[in-house]
């Protein structure tokens, strides 16, 4: 199969407008004859479900949480980018496009990214109209801040809770449609398979998490808005429930999985304290606007500090290595996430880490407090400082924070074309779950933008085109594909429940996480990845022999839920490793040790790797087949990123 991204012809700035015109429309009177399934109710899912229902389609929306409002978009702190140029500081759609392409280390599709930048302005309008309480200035207009290394202030924010406020906005739009009867909401339902009949996605299989009922739902199109797969690392900043299952099942039913190895490791997280740790907590990278990252200059000093022989205050200014400021004088502490993360890891690897585990560096606000005063710092970062204090029992106003990178976001995901359609007809993928807009590294405050862009402003047009093409004939849920999909889910569950092994699901998940972090984390190499592939296979085989899943299907059974998810992570992990192995270059979040500059910076290989890797599933345990979507850059010149 040849990957056709369906990028419209014409100049970059006109592609989307022209494309919208060329897309077929569904007759208003016919819209109510269509049903669309939306899986996941984060920013992408809620906004898509609400927008489609407003248009008149019948929507069935699903989430595994107890309420659509709890999807993990809620946890995004920092903000949302939009090329409004309210600050008159030189921002434009083109600059946002350019920054995103460059930030993604030239591994994203130009046309998609440009569209994202283009609709970004509408998102802000939409959210404000819904009553999202963005930060404002005294004049009553919207405030902006510079974020994540951007040189313009284009980030809109709602204190440290932007994701929450945006999600509640989308949730309110969704609620309105539920109230109107246009959306039927299924809380505590997990999607466990896609039904592909006659080459088209025509429904899904779900499990009711309360009573275990497994049922099929038919629809004219299925939208997966199921988020990222960062939890493959066990420890990540994702919510405990975040999983790849929906996307993975779609993959197994024919949707290609693109760039799975592109993982974003966020530099400012609270370090791990022990084996019991269940998740990592991110602190907004806005902290880097005022905090200075440093480590002790020598490993000896760091060791004395770790042992408690000296205190932080005992380390003199000249003995502190502000390594980001030193190495990247023009960007300093505001270098992109991947660069900041890798440098922290380097410091730790050199033995300069701090904290009891030695796996942390400092983020110091002493200068900011001196310069701005404690009150101003509190006003800006108070909630983050409180959170840090709550978790670590250390007061960041008095001593520097300890931070360490953690898995945060996955740029990879299901391959989609310009219409957000996967390689399965009628199966769409939105938000973090797809691969489309962030290339090999996502810029800060762009995830929220993408989720909402896809849901509010892209899918309502593109799915209409598909629906108009297939026509409003009801979907036949008597098609054998429905029964087959349901049966395969039931069998898998029965298998898991029958194992009665000796290790818990968490045991396997934790082990998988260690393998992934060790060999497919911040730095990767051929030998490590090859080893990891073997380890994952072994672990997966053992899992299917030796895992304990208690209880039965017909009840609220959290062990079973976890087991189903971890089983899929165990398959995904191997694909990530495969992808990291084939990409013998460093780019964005993917750092291959074999491919670095003399200064130890990531080195891209545009000649051989300017493509999106789309993997085709070939059966359980089989090597997946790689398809390449060549990335054509007509508007930007590929340069080595430099933040010096």
């Amino acid at each position, binding site marked *: 199969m040849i990957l056709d991204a369906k990028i419209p012809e014409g100049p970059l700035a006109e592609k989307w407008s022209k494309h919208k015109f060329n897309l077929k429309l569904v007759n208003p009177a016919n819209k109510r004859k269509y049903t669309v399934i939306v899986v996941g109710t984060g920013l992408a899912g809620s906004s898509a479900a609400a*927008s489609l229902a*407003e248009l008149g389609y019948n929507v069935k929306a699903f989430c595994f*949480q*107890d*309420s*659509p*409002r*709890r999807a*993990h978009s*809620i*946890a995004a702190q920092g903000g949302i980018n939009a090329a*409004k140029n309210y600050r008159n500081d030189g921002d434009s759609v083109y600059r946002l496009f350019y920054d995103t392409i460059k930030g993604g280390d030239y591994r994203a599709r130009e046309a998609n990214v440009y569209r994202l930048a283009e609709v970004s302005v509408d998102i*802000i*309008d*939409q*959210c*404000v*109209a*819904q*009553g999202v*309480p*963005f*930060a*404002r*200035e005294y004049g*009553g207009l*919207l405030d902006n801040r510079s974020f994540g290394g951007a040189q313009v202030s284009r980030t809109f924010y*709602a*204190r440290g809770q932007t994701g*929450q*406020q945006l999600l*509640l906005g989308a949730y309110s*739009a969704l*609620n*309105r449609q*539920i*109230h109107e009867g246009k959306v039927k909401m299924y*809380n505590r339902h997990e999607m466990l398979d896609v039904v592909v009949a006659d080459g088209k996605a025509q429904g899904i299989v779900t499990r009711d998490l309360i009573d275990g009922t497994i049922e099929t739902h038919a629809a004219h199109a299925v939208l997966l808005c199921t988020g990222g797969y960062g939890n493959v690392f066990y420890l990540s900043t994702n*919510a*405990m429930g975040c999983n790849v299952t929906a996307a993975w099942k779609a993959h197994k039913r024919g949707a290609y999985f693109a760039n799975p190895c592109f993982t974003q490791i966020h530099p400012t997280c609270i370090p791990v*304290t*022990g084996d*019991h*740790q*269940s*998740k990592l907590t991110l602190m907004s990278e806005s902290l880097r606007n005022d905090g200075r990252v440093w480590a002790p200059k020598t490993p000896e000093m760091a060791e004395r500090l770790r042992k408690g022989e000296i205190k932080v205050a005992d380390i003199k200014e000249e003995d502190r290595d502000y390594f980001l400021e030193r190495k990247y004088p023009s960007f300093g502490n505001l270098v992109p996430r991947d660069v900041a993360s890798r440098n922290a890891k380097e410091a730790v690897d050199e033995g300069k880490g701090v904290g009891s585990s030695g796996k942390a560096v400092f983020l110091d606000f002493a200068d900011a407090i001196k310069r701005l005063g404690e009150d101003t710092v509190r006003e800006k970062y108070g909630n983050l400082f409180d959170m840090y204090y*709550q*978790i670590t*029992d250390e007061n960041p106003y008095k001593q520097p924070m300890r931070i360490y990178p953690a898995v945060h976001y996955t740029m990879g995901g299901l391959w989609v074309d310009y219409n957000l359609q996967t390689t399965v007809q009628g199966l769409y993928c939105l938000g973090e779950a797809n691969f489309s807009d962030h290339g090999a590294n996502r810029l800060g405050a762009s995830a929220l933008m993408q989720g909402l862009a896809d849901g*509010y*402003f892209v899918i309502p047009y593109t799915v209409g085109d598909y629906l108009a093409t297939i026509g409003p004939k009801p979907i036949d849920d008597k098609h054998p594909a429905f029964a087959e999909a349901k049966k395969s889910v039931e069998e898998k569950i029965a298998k898991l429940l029958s194992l009665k092994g*000796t290790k818990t699901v*968490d*045991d396997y998940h934790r082990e998988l996480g260690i393998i992934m972090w060790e060999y497919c984390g911040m730095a990767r190499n051929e030998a490590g990845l090859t080893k990891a592939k073997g380890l994952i296979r072994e672990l997966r085989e053992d899992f299917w022999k030796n895992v*304990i899943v*208690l*209880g039965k299907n017909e*009840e609220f059974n*959290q*062990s079973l839920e976890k087991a189903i998810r971890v089983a899929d992570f165990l398959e995904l992990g191997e694909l990530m490793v495969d992808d990291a192995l084939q990409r013998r270059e460093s780019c964005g979040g993917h750092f291959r040790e074999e491919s670095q500059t003399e200064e130890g910076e990531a080195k891209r290989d545009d000649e051989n790797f300017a493509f999106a890797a789309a993997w085709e599933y070939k059966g359980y345990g089989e090597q997946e087949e790689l398809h390449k979507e060549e990335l054509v850059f007509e508007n930007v010149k590929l340069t080595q990123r430099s933040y010096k």
Partner: protein
Amino acid sequence: MSKHMNLTIKVWRQKNVQDKGGFKTYKADNIADDMSFLEMLDVVNEGLTKKGEDPIHFDHDCREGICGMCSLYINGRPHGPKTAITTCQLHMRSFNDGETITIEPWRSGAFPVIKDLAVDRTAFDRIQQAGGYVSVNTGGIPDANEIPVPKPIADEAFNSATCIGCGACVAACKNGSAMLFVSAKISQMALLPQGQQERYQRAQAMVNQMDTEGFGSCTNTGACEVECPKEISLTNIARMNREYFTAKFFKEEEMH
């Protein structure tokens, strides 16, 4: 370095909504004080699973205090002994070695127990569905800066909007009232210019749904405000009352 402690936990176990349920006691040994409360339960659950006993079911997701899914009533208080945090942010250093900790689900007729410590909070969703929104469709919206909002008003609206819908207010209230939750949304919308068009119908619709769900009535004890992990203020309830009475006595808008 972290300290370790041995604890006894007394946990409400209930198979499903029909089951009567009761307390069971477990040992939680060698618990590090820098574990979160939920991590302590994870440890206990790992032990139970290995023994072939059904693990304790409880709701949780983001574990960073924002999704509102975690919901435990610990030693007589929602989200445990500390204020302004959710259970997932509660750490074991707030407890002492040898202590017995009693863990119960949220108790409210409107929040039936699903299993053990997990309850069904869809009543909250239905209240939001009744009117917790501004009726705008996607697209065709004026520029964001055409709707100025004075900063103090925006900040106040934000304070109300931070509600995470966890239900601690209901759990804390001796009357099982949901008014802090309902009023937070009504307030947010009543304060902002965007919410004005449906202001009075919204207050009626949401209060009406709240009553339909069977929540208790407010006696202004203020327990909700104290226990709210997001420190939503009681002022919101006063504002809701004002909105509701104004709507009922002086306005002609009806619920839609």
